[in-house]
């Protein structure tokens, strides 16, 4: 929307894009950072890294969705 071209279908398109991208982003965040946390746990033996990674991943994904689609 930043390019200033306002088309009538943009509203619906943005809404649907957001709705269908959110699960994808959440999953990506969890897999990526949860996985990284798990690897760290394996290496260091500190179990806490896995949940920290998971939470970080979800938080980053939510932040990304908010910045991209939140008005």
């Amino acid at each position: 929307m930043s390019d200033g071209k306002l088309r009538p279908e943009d509203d619906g398109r943005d809404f649907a894009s957001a709705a269908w991208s959110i699960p994808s982003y959440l999953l990506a965040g969890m897999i990526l950072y949860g996985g990284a946390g798990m690897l760290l746990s394996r290496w260091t033996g500190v179990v806490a890294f896995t949940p920290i990674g998971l939470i970080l991943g979800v938080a980053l994904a939510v932040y990304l969705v908010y910045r991209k689609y939140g008005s």
Partner: protein
Amino acid sequence: MNTLTVLASGASGASEDVFTPPGLELFDYPPLIAGVSWFTKPVLLALLSTLIVVIFCWSAFAKPKLVPRGVQNVGEMGYMFVRDQVARPFLGKDADRWMGLLLSIFFMVWIWNLMGVIPIIQFPVASHIAFPIVLAISIYVLKIYLGIKHQGPIGYFKNMMFPPGLPKPIYVLLAPIEFLSNLIIAPFTHAVRLFANMFAGHIILAFFSLVGFWFVFEHLTPLGVGLGVVGVVMTIAMTAFEMFIQFLQAFLFAMLAAMYIGNSLHADH
């Protein structure tokens, strides 16, 4: 038919009187013709679906009249639905160019799914993951091709992974999420969503029909008959619900395809 095979397999088990709920064996089919290992029921149904879609569309659209009549009316309803609900919201003025693809996808997936509730056939083609995968991969390849063509090879990945307006250091953390989400999870869920819905729907239908069949016809007991009636009623209700889900999934599959194409044609932010 499924119930029969499952029943047979259940009956050949340890005990005659034990009710065995249907499982993954619902989706395993032997070759229809001995020796031709690739020619199974799902394959036959996939080919049949293709034939149905082609024949239907041919009779509707081959010689279209200005004043529509008969099958053309029905076909046009499908066309209008895909155009107004799928193509135009996501593609805008480019909608007409992609209608051929989206219409093909929508009709094909819907017929695949409908196979799940047609008596005797009763097997949703999309519950074998190979079929959704073919469509999802085609859309995935098209999406990347269009993205590179319309936004440039660098521009496409830059627009995808580095959405503007975020603080610089955070890109290091967010770009991998974007990459994973757009290039791996999105196509994966695109195929799996359709597959899983049809898979689960088929199991549920098979379960309730088996309950009804088992307790009403096979092992009629005063205690079990109530359960059997519930099973029959639920089979009818779930068939209606499943028809709705089948349509919805066909619509969603086409809609997501349109969304991916639209996002590749112009970066969305």
